[in-house]
C-alpha cells in the first residue's frame, strides 16, 4: 500500500515534468516570446518589415497543408500535388523567382504538412505555417470544404491564397469580403453546366437523370443542373443524392434505367464514378450522354476502363491541341510518366495560378503580400491559358479554354464550349464494349 503510494507520487512528478517539457518543446521552434505578438500584428506587411535592416533573403518559403494520408489523399495526390512539385522544380531549375528588392533570383522552398484529410488539423497547420514557420506564401489546401475553412484564415493573417482543388458558387458571395482569396478552378453555374446543357440539348437530349454525392460539390452541381437543364428544354426525370462511403450504386442505376433518360449525370468523385461506370456496363445501361466528375477527367479513368470510356463526358480544362503553350504543359507534366497522373481538368488552372503568383512577385519586386495581391487582383498575365486575369476574385470566364470534355479514341477531347472545341461531341455515345 505504502509502496504503491510512493510510486504514484513519483509518477505525478513525471507527469508534471512531461507537461513542463512539452511547454518547452512547444516554445523551442518559436522566436523569443516578446517578438511573437508583434509578428502577428505585423503579418500583413511582415515581408516589408525587414526594410529597416538591409534585406537579405535566399529563398521564398511556401507552406502547404495537404492530405498526405486519409480519405482525400487520392485527390490531393493527383490534382494540385504533382503541379506544385513540377512548378517548383521548373522554377528552381531556372534559378528561382527574380525579386527586385533582393536584387536576385530566389529559389522556392516548400514546407508540406500532412493534414490527414481533417479540416481541424488543416486549419491548425495553416496557422502553424503562418505564425510559427512564418512562410512567405501559403499554397492551398485540398477540397472545397477545406478552401472554405482556410480562406478566412488567409484573410485574417493577410496572406494571398490562390486556391486549387475545389470551388463552389457560394464562394462567389464570400469573395468580396476576402480580398486575399482567388479561385482558379471552374465550377458549376458560370461554366460547365450551361455549356453541357446547351451542347446535349442541341444534339437532341430531352430527359436527364441526375445523381449527386451528398456534399457541397454534389449539391452545387445538382442545383445548377436543376436550373440549366430545364432552361435548355431538358426534363429532369430523376434526382438522387448518394451518401459518401457507399460503393455500390447498382440500384440507383436500375432506377435510372427505368426512366430511360437521354442524359445521365453523376456529380461525384472517382469513388462513385468508377463503380458506377462498371455497373452501367454490367446492367447494359447506355444513355446517350454520360457525364461524371470529377473523375472522368483523370488519366487513371482511362487506364481503368480502356475502350469502355469512349463517349463518356466530364469536366475539362484544356487539350494540348489548343495551343503550343498547352501542348508544352502537357508534355512537361505527362511525358514519360504513367497515364494515371493526367488530369485534363484542373492541371492548367493550377499551373496558371502558380504562374500568376510568380509573375505578380516579379512585378511587385518584393515579397509584400499586399503589393502582390493588388497586382493579382488587377493585372493581366500571360500563362498557359493565354491572356489570364482574375475578375472579382475568380479566374475570368474568358480565360477558360474548356468546360466539357469527352473521351474519343482514348483521348479526352474538348467538346464544349464550341469555340474552344477540339472535336465535335459524339451523341449518342457509342455502346459499351462487349466482352
Amino acid at each position, binding site marked *: 500500500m505504502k509502496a504503491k503510494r510512493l510510486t504514484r507520487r513519483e509518477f505525478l512528478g*513525471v507527469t508534471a515534468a512531461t507537461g513542463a517539457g512539452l511547454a518547452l518543446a512547444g516554445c523551442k521552434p518559436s522566436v523569443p516570446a516578446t517578438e511573437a505578438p508583434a509578428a502577428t500584428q505585423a503579418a500583413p506587411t511582415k515581408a516589408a518589415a525587414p526594410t529597416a535592416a538591409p534585406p537579405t533573403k535566399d529563398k521564398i518559403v511556401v507552406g502547404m497543408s495537404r492530405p498526405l494520408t486519409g480519405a482525400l489523399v487520392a485527390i490531393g495526390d493527383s490534382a494540385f500535388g504533382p503541379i506544385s512539385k513540377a512548378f517548383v522544380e521548373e522554377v528552381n531549375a531556372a534559378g528561382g523567382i527574380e525579386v527586385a528588392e533582393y536584387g536576385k533570383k530566389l529559389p522556392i522552398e516548400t514546407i508540406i504538412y500532412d493534414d490527414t484529410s481533417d479540416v481541424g488539423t488543416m486549419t*491548425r497547420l495553416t496557422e502553424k505555417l503562418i505564425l510559427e514557420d512564418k512562410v512567405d506564401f501559403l499554397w492551398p489546401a485540398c477540397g472545397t470544404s477545406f478552401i472554405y475553412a482556410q480562406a478566412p484564415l488567409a484573410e485574417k493573417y493577410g496572406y494571398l491564397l490562390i486556391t486549387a482543388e475545389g470551388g463552389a458558387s457560394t464562394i462567389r458571395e464570400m469573395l468580396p469580403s476576402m480580398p486575399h482569396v482567388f479561385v482558379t478552378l471552374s465550377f458549376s453555374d458560370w461554366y460547365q453546366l450551361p455549356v453541357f446543357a446547351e451542347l446535349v440539348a442541341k444534339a437532341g437530349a430531352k430527359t436527364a437523370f441526375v445523381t449527386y454525392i451528398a456534399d457541397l460539390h454534389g449539391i452545387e452541381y445538382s442545383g445548377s443542373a436543376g436550373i440549366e437543364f430545364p432552361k435548355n428544354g431538358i426534363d429532369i426525370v430523376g434526382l438522387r443524392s448518394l451518401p459518401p462511403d457507399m460503393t455500390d450504386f447498382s440500384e440507383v442505376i436500375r432506377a435510372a434505367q427505368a426512366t430511360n433518360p437521354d442524359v445521365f449525370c453523376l456529380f461525384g468523385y472517382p469513388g462513385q464514378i468508377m463503380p458506377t461506370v462498371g455497373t452501367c456496363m454490367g446492367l447494359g445501361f447506355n444513355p446517350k450522354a454520360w457525364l461524371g466528375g470529377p473523375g472522368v477527367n483523370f488519366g487513371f479513368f482511362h487506364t481503368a476502363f480502356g475502350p469502355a470510356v469512349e463517349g463518356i463526358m466530364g469536366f475539362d480544362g484544356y487539350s494540348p491541341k489548343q495551343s503550343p503553350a498547352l501542348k508544352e504543359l502537357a508534355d512537361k507534366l505527362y511525358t514519360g510518366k504513367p497515364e494515371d497522373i493526367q488530369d485534363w481538368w484542373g492541371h492548367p488552372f493550377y499551373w496558371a495560378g502558380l504562374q500568376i503568383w510568380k509573375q505578380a512577385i516579379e512585378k511587385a519586386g518584393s515579397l509584400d503580400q499586399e503589393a502582390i495581391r493588388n497586382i493579382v487582383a488587377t493585372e493581366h498575365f500571360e500563362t498557359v491559358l493565354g491572356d489570364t486575369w482574375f475578375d472579382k476574385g475568380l479566374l475570368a470566364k474568358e480565360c477558360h479554354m474548356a468546360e466539357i470534355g469527352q473521351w474519343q479514341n482514348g483521348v479526352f477531347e474538348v467538346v464544349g464550349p464550341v469555340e474552344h472545341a477540339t472535336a465535335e461531341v459524339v451523341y449518342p455515345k457509342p455502346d459499351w464494349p462487349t466482352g
Partner: protein
Amino acid sequence: MQTGKASWLRLRTPVLWLALLAAMGTLSLYASPYTVIMVTNILMYVILTVSWVLFSAPTGYISLATAAFFGVGIYTSATLGGQLPLPLIILTAGVASFVLAALVGALTLRLKGVYFAFFTFGLVELIKHLLLWYEVSVTGVRGRFVVSADNVTIYYIILGILVILLLTSYLIRRSRVGLALQAIGEGEDAAAHTGINVSAVKTFVFALSAVFAGAAGAAMATRWGYVDPYIAFDYLFSFTAVAMAVFGGLGRFEGPILGAVVFAFLRELLITRFPYVYMLVMGSVLVVTILYLPQGLVQLAQKSTWRRLRGHREPA
C-alpha cells in the same frame, strides 16, 4: 529529517499540479501564438480522453460515442454561432450532449461489453448520416461556417473545461458515485444487490462525461471555420480517445492524460516533420507500446525509470 521528507511527499503532488496549472494558466503570456494553438489542440484530446475514461475505465464499458458528443458540440457551435455568446453556446453544447448521452445511456447501458461498443460506434454513424440527410434534403446545405473566436480565448476556454473535468473526475473517484462505479465495473449483479441503482449511476456518469466532450466540440469548432457532418462526426475521435487512454494506461488517474499528451504531441510532430510516414511511425509506436508496456506509458514511469533513479540516489 524523516518527517520533513514525509511532509514534502505529502505536499509534492498538489504543489506539482498547481505549478503545472500556473504554467498552463499563463501560457499565452510567454509562449508563441502557435504554441498556444498547438497546446489547445493537445488539451482538446486530453479532454476527450479523460471524459472517456471517466465512464469507461471504471465500468469497463468501451464507449465509442465520444465522437457523437464531440460532434453535437461542433454542430451546436455551427448553428448557434453568432446568435449567442460563446460561453452560452458551450453550455448549450454541454447540455445537448448530456441529454443525448442520458437518452442513449438509458436505452443501451444494459448492453454488455462489446455490444455497447458496437452500438455507440453505430450511434456516431447514425447521427452523421441522419444529419447529412437532413442537411441535404431539408436545409439544402451540407456545410456550415463557424463564427471564429480568438485563439487565446479558445485556449483558456479549453483549459477551463479541462480543469473542471479533472476536478470532476477527481471528486467522482473519491465520492459515493465513484465507489458505485467501481463496484459496477467489478460486477453489476453484485453491485445491484448491494443496493446500487446500477442503471442510474451508469447513465448519470455516462451523461456527465458527455458534457465535456460536447463543450470541447463547441469550443474547437470555432477554430475549424467550416464544418459538415463528415467533419464533425468523425469516428476517428472515438477511436483516438480510446487509443490515447490505453496508450497512456488506464490503471492510474494520470495515465490517460499522459497518453493523450504524448499521442497528440507525437502526432503533431510527425505530420509536420515526417508527413509521408506519419501513420507508419504512429502505428508502430502504438503496437510496440502495447506489446512492451501492456499497462501503457505509465508503466514506464513506475518501473524502469524510477527504479534506476532510486538506485542512483540511494548510495549518495
